[in-house]
């Protein structure tokens, strides 16, 4: 059995190798509320992160896989969700006259994209395409640490660094040249819950929120996982005892 385990470990380390291949700088170490076997999303942080997204990120970045109704997971009330959804303008139709029309958003709608299509997004952003943020934490090596590092990683380029025009220096971004100007700075938003909006605070909050949008099933998954593992431990024990009993007469 030990040999099986070592083979398994060897395979696991093999698979892990590509994860080390990030070309950016070292990522800051940070402990996130949603890590670990029993981790859950820090709700107040995620709700603040929603505010950072809607006040800052949503100008350029879509969140198209998330629906307003999903925000109930973060503890938003039905009325709050309706109110937030209604601030968006959703294209609908055709109506009975065959025309498309705009209406206020409803909870069942997905977050409205800031640009109608990728070409429009590029045209408005100097040719760079702001990625959709729904899965961003799962879609980047380093996950939440990368995102947090990116938000807090803007600095002056080293003297010998050749920065292309229209680009910005970021110490964790692969290649260090990023088209997005520094999105967050102290006081960029005014938090509804009165928390002081420092850069570090906002970076943590928006990372927590986007970790939730990436893996909304995380809490249910871990809760179920603990039960399943405990169940399997007991089942394995019983089966082992049974196996020993059956085999007792053979050995």
């Amino acid at each position, binding site marked *: 059995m030990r040999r099986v385990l070592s083979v398994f470990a060897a395979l696991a380390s093999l698979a892990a190798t590509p994860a080390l291949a990030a070309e950016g700088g070292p990522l800051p170490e940070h402990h996130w509320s949603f890590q670990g076997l029993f981790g859950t999303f820090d709700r107040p942080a995620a709700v603040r992160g929603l505010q950072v997204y809607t006040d800052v990120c949503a100008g350029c970045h879509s969140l198209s896989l998330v*629906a307003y*109704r999903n925000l*109930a997971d973060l503890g938003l009330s*039905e009325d709050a*969700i309706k109110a937030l959804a209604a601030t968006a303008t959703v294209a609908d139709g055709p*109506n*009975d006259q065959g025309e498309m029309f705009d209406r206020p958003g*409803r*909870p*069942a709608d997905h977050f409205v994209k800031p640009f109608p299509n990728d070409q429009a997004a590029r045209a408005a952003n100097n040719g760079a395409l702001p990625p959709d943020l729904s899965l961003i934490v799962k879609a980047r090596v380093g996950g939440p640490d990368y995102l947090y590092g990116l938000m807090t990683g803007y600095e002056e380029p080293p003297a010998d660094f050749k920065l292309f025009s229209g680009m910005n220096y970021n110490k964790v971004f692969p290649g260090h040249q990023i088209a997005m100007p520094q999105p967050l700075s102290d006081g960029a938003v005014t938090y509804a819950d009165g928390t002081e909006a420092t850069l570090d605070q906002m970076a943590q909050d928006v990372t927590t929120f986007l970790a939730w949008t990436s893996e909304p099933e995380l809490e249910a998954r871990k809760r179920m996982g603990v039960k399943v593992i405990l*169940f399997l431990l*007991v*089942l394995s024990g*019983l*089966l082992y*005892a*049974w196996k020993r*009993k*059956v085999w*007792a*007469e*053979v050995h």
Partner: protein
Amino acid sequence: MANSLQAGAATGHGPGAGGEATRRDFLVLATAALGAVGIASVAWPLIDQMNPAADVLALSTTEVDIAPVEVGQAITVVWRGKPVFVRHRTPEEIKSAEDTPLGDLKDPQPDSARVQKPEWLVMIGVCTHLGCIPKGQMPTDDKGEYGGWFCPCHGSVYDTSGRIRKGPAPLNLAVPPYKFLTDTSLLIGEAPDAKPATGEAA
């Protein structure tokens, strides 16, 4: 020793003392019970995945502009993938619906229980027999002998209140939850007390 071992191995079942047999029986029983619980717990997600998904449950309302619908006309709108009949009833239709004695009905229900405003009848346009869509929306349609709707599949006849009068269908055409947003605008999928029809917020 060696002989008895061979014998045990050859038959596949070694003799066990009485006490051991009970312990093994208990072990087998406990393990089998736990295994059954495990299989049942795995089966449930595999079954439940076929139930409506969260996004399907959330798409629960349809808004309808009824201003252009003249008296005597009807429109069909789509709500949750099903046709909803909205008929602007004539005074004669209303009168005939209200005057029908409940004793004549297969599924007794007064007209007042089926409408919020007597001139507007809103129903799910799906025959309660086997799910066909009854005729009666278009002016040219056969409306059946009670002036309501007629289902061509198996001949069910509905009256001007959408109640079953003849044929194999067991129940009246269903009334969906709806409310009047204004005098000329309907919201289907939400009852007047402003509660959503389904737990989509959950």
